[in-house]
C-alpha cells in the first residue's frame, strides 16, 4: 500500500524474469515479487528497490481432472483456479487462506504464486495437509537469474531433492515462481459442522482433541471463545465433517454420542452455514475486524491453551483470539504497541516449542520486531546458506524473512 512509488517491471514470461533478475544482480538492487498484492504487508518491512509484477504471468496451462492435476502460471488468480475446479467438483484441499481482508486489502486478489510462497493453508490443513503437501512441481527463475524446474506432474516422485517443499513458505526469497503444478482433489459431496456449546475454553479444546481421537474423521476443528463468531454468547467447539451425505450424518451422530456429557449442548450447522463459518475462520475473520496487532501461533494442540494463558498472565492486553487445528493454531489479536509484545509471545511459545509469526502490524513495528520466529544459531546459518544457494546476492525480497538476508 505504501510501496506504490516502487519502480515496477511487468513479468510476462520466464525470459522477462531472467532479464529482470540478471539486471538486478548486475546493479545489486533488490526486488519485491508482487502478484495481486494481498500479502504485500506480510513479512518484515524491508523496502525493495523495484517490484517484479507477476499478474501478466497468468493462465491455467494444464488441467486434467481425472488425473487430479492442474498447472497454472504463478500470476493466475486463486479465484480463477478455484472457480475452474468448482465447475469440475474439485478443490484445492488445503483450503488456501486469503490474507487480503486481514491485512487491509480487498478479498479475492491472491495469486497462486503468492499462495505457494506463503504456504497459505486453511482449517482443513489438519486433515488434508498444507499447500506444501499439494505442490507436485514448479518452474522458477532463481535469484541467480537461472530457469530451474523441479518435481513433475505425477503424485509419486522422489527424483532429486524435493524443492517443491522448499519454495512453499519461502516468501519469494529464493526464486520467482513462474509455473506451479498442483494436486487437486474431489470436493466432498456435503459438509456439516457440529457445535459443542457450553464448556469453557480449556474444556472445549480438550473436547476437540477427543474428537481427533475418534474414527469420525473430522476435517477441521476450531475453538471459538464466546462472541468471536456465530453470535454465540458461550464458548464453543466447532467440528467440521465432510464426505458423502450418508457418512456425514452417521459420523455426526456418532460424534455426539462420544462427546456427550459435561453439560455441553450440541447444534448442527447445515452445509451452507458450515461453509460460511469455515471460510471466515480460514481468513481469520473473527479477529480481522479488531483494531490491533495479529499473531499467528503454531504449537502442539495440547499446548495452545497454555500458551494463551501465559501470554494473558504476563499482562498482554488480548483483544480477541480463537484456535484452529484442534488447538494447534492460535490467532491472537493484541492491543497495538510498538513491539507487539514479541518477547512475551515468543517466550510463551518457546516453553514447549512452536513458532509465532507477527502477521499484522505497522511497518514501523515490522521493522524493529522479527516477524518470523528467531532461529538458533546453527539453523540460522544453514538457512542463510540455503538462501544463498538460490540467491547469493540477496536480490529477491531482501530482508523480508530475516534481517540478515
Amino acid at each position, binding site marked *: 500500500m505504501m510501496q506504490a512509488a516502487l519502480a515496477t517491471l511487468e513479468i510476462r514470461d520466464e525470459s522477462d524474469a531472467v532479464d529482470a533478475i540478471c539486471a538486478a544482480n548486475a546493479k545489486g538492487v533488490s526486488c519485491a515479487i508482487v502478484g495481486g498484492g494481498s500479502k504485500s504487508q506480510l513479512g518484515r518491512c524491508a523496502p525493495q528497490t523495484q517490484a517484479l509484477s507477476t499478474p501478466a504471468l497468468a493462465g491455467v496451462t494444464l488441467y486434467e481432472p481425472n488425473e487430479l492435476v492442474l498447472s497454472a502460471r504463478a500470476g493466475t488468480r486463486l479465484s480463477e483456479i478455484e472457480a475452474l475446479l468448482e465447475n469440475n467438483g474439485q478443490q484445492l484441499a488445503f483450503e488456501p487462506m486469503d490474507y487480503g481482508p486481514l491485512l487491509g486489502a480487498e478479498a479475492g486478489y491472491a495469486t497462486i504464486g503468492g499462495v505457494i510462497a506463503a504456504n497459505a493453508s486453511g482449517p482443513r490443513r489438519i486433515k488434508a495437509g498444507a499447500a506444501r503437501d499439494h505442490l507436485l512441481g514448479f518452474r522458477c527463475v532463481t535469484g541467480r537469474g537461472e530457469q530451474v524446474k523441479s518435481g513433475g506432474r505425477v503424485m509419486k516422485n522422489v527424483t532429486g531433492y524435493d524443492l517443491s517443499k522448499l519454495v512453499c513458505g519461502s516468501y519469494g526469497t529464493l526464486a520467482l515462481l513462474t509455473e506451479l503444478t498442483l494436486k487437486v482433489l474431489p470436493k466432498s459431496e456435503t459438509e456439516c459442522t457440529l457445535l459443542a456449546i457450553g464448556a469453557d475454553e480449556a474444556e472445549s479444546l480438550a473436547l476437540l482433541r477427543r474428537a481427533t481421537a475418534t474414527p469420525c474423521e473430522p476435517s477441521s476443528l476450531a475453538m471459538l471463545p464466546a462472541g468471536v463468531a456465530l453470535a454465540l454468547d458461550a464458548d464453543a467447539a466447532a467440528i467440521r465433517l465432510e464426505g458423502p451425505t450418508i*457418512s456425514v450424518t452417521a459420523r455426526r451422530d456418532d460424534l455426539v454420542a462420544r462427546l456427550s456429557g459435561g453439560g455441553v449442548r450440541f447444534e448442527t450447522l447445515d452445509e451452507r452455514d458450515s461453509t460460511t463459518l469455515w471460510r471466515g475462520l480460514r481468513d481469520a475473520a473473527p479477529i480481522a475486524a479488531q483494531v490491533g496487532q495479529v499473531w499467528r501461533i503454531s504449537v502442539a494442540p495440547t499446548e495452545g491453551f497454555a500458551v494463551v494463558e501465559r501470554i494473558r498472565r504476563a499482562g498482554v492486553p488480548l483483544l480477541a483470539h480463537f484456535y484452529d487445528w484442534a488447538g494447534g493454531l492460535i490467532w491472537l489479536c493484541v492491543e497495538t504497541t510498538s513491539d507487539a509484545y514479541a518477547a512475551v509471545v515468543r517466550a510463551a511459545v518457546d516453553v514447549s516449542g512452536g513458532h509465532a509469526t507477527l502477521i499484522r502490524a505497522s511497518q514501523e513495528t515490522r521493522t524493529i520486531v522479527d516477524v518470523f520466529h528467531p532461529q538458533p544459531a546453527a539453523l540460522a546459518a544453514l538457512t542463510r546458506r540455503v538462501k544463498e544457494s538460490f540467491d547469493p546476492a540477496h536480490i529477491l525480497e531482501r530482508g523480508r524473512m530475516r534481517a540478515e538476508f
Partner: protein
Amino acid sequence: MTLLMPTPEPAIMSQRGELIARLGAILPSESLIVDEVSRRAYECDAFTMYRALPLVVALPGNVEQVRAIMALAAEMNVKVVPRGAGTSLSGGSMPLEDGILLGMSKFNRILEIDYENRCARVQPGVQNLAISKAVEAQGFYYAPDPSSQIACSIGGNVAENAGGVHCLKYGLTTNNILGLEVVLMGGDLIRLGGKHLDSEGYDLIGLMTGSEGLLGVVTEVVVRLLQKPPVARGLLLGFASVTAGARCVGAIIARGVIPAGLEMMDRATIHAVERFQPCGYPLDAEALVIVELDGTPAEVDHLVSVVQDIAREEGATTIRASTSEAERLQFWAGRKNAFPAVSCIAPDYLCMDGTIPRARLPEALAGMERLAKEQGLSVANVFHAGDGNLHPLILYDASKEGDVERAEKLGFDILRLCVSLGGVLTGEHGVGVEKRDLMGEMFSDVDLEQQMRLKCAFDPAGRLNPGKVFPTLHRCAEFGMMHVAGGKMPFPDLPRF
C-alpha cells in the same frame, strides 16, 4: 554395464589406522567394525548389483557419538555413508571404500507416544511397522507402508521419502512427519519442526525428506499418527485388457472416490502369483485391479457399491467385494506376494520404479513390450495404479551371458520412456546409484546445479554420501559456494562420471 563410483582417495585410505583409533575414542569397541569379514556384511543394501567394502563401520548409539563422528569426519576429510536397515532398492546406502559406513541400527527406541497430539517421537533405527504395532491397541497407526515395512527403518524412510500402497489417500513419508533432529557434516545439531504443524522458515523437513542421505544424518523423527479407520473393504476386479483396467481406475477417481489402495497387475504377474500361493485371482483376466475403501461402515458400503457400478460400466469380467476381513486380506495376499512370486518364474528380476501420468498407461505398456522384445526379455508388471507408479519387473537370468547388461539396458530404456510420457525416473525407490546416470534425462544441467548448490549449503566439502543421486561431482567452489582457505582445495581430484 559398469557403475563408476568416486575413486577411493589415497589420502583417506592411508589414514585408516588413525581414523580407526580416533573412532575408537568415540565409540565402545563393539560399535566399531574393523575386520574385513564383518565389514562384508555391509557391502551392499537391497540393490545388490553393486557392492563395495566400507573403510570402517561405525554403529553409534547416541546423538553425541554421531556428532563426534561427523566432526571427526569433517576434520579428517573422510566420507560418510549413512545407513538405516539397508533395504534401499537404489543403492542409497551402498558403502564407499574410502568412507565410514554410519549404521543407525542402535537408534532403535520409540521415545514417546503422544496420543493427544497424535504423534510419536522415535529414533531413526525403529522399524516402520514397529510404530504402527506400538500404537494399534489405541486404534492408531503410522500411514506410510512400504512393502519392506517389516524391515525398513523410519530414518531410511525419511531419507528415501518412502511410499507404500496407501499413499494415494494418506501420502508419502514427507506428508506424515512433523519434526526431525539432524546432525550436519561437521557435527552441528539442528532441530526442525516438532509436534506442531508447518514450521515457518524454509521447509527443511521437506528438503531433508527424500534427500537420500546426502544432506544430514537424521537422529530423531516425529511422525504423525492417524486414527485407524473402523472398516476397510476390498474389491477384486478383473479385466479383459490392461487398457480396460486402467480406464476403470481413471473412472473411479473421476467419480470423486479416492480409495485407500488402488493396485493393478498384469497377466504375467497374476499367473505367477497363483502358482506361488493360490489366492483365487481370475486366471482368464489380462489385468487385475485391487481396490481398498476405508472409513465408517456406512461410507464404505456406499463406496463399494459405487465402485461396483463403475466396474460394471467399464466391462469388468470379474467383480468381487470382500465381505469379511479374512477375505480382504486374501485379496491383498497375492499382491503382497507379487515380488517373491515373480522370482519363482525367472532366476532373477530387476524391479523398476518409474511414474507416469495415469492416462498414458496403455502407451507405456505398449512401449515396454516393444523395448523388452528388442532385448529378448520379458516383463511382469505391478502398478500402484492410483498414482501412476509402475513397477515393471524385468525377468532375466544372471547366469546367461549378457543378460545382466540387457536387463539394465531395458530398465534404463523403460525409465526414459516414462520421462518421455511426462513421468519421472523414480516414484518411491530413490535415485541412489541405480538411476544416478539418468538424471540428465529429466533435469537440465542448470536444474541439477541448483540441487547440487543446496547440497553444498549442507555439506560444503561434499563428504556426505558422495557419488549418489548426481551424475557428476563438483567442487562447491565451482558454484561459488565454498570459501577456499589459502588457495588450498581440499580435494583436487574429484571425478566426473
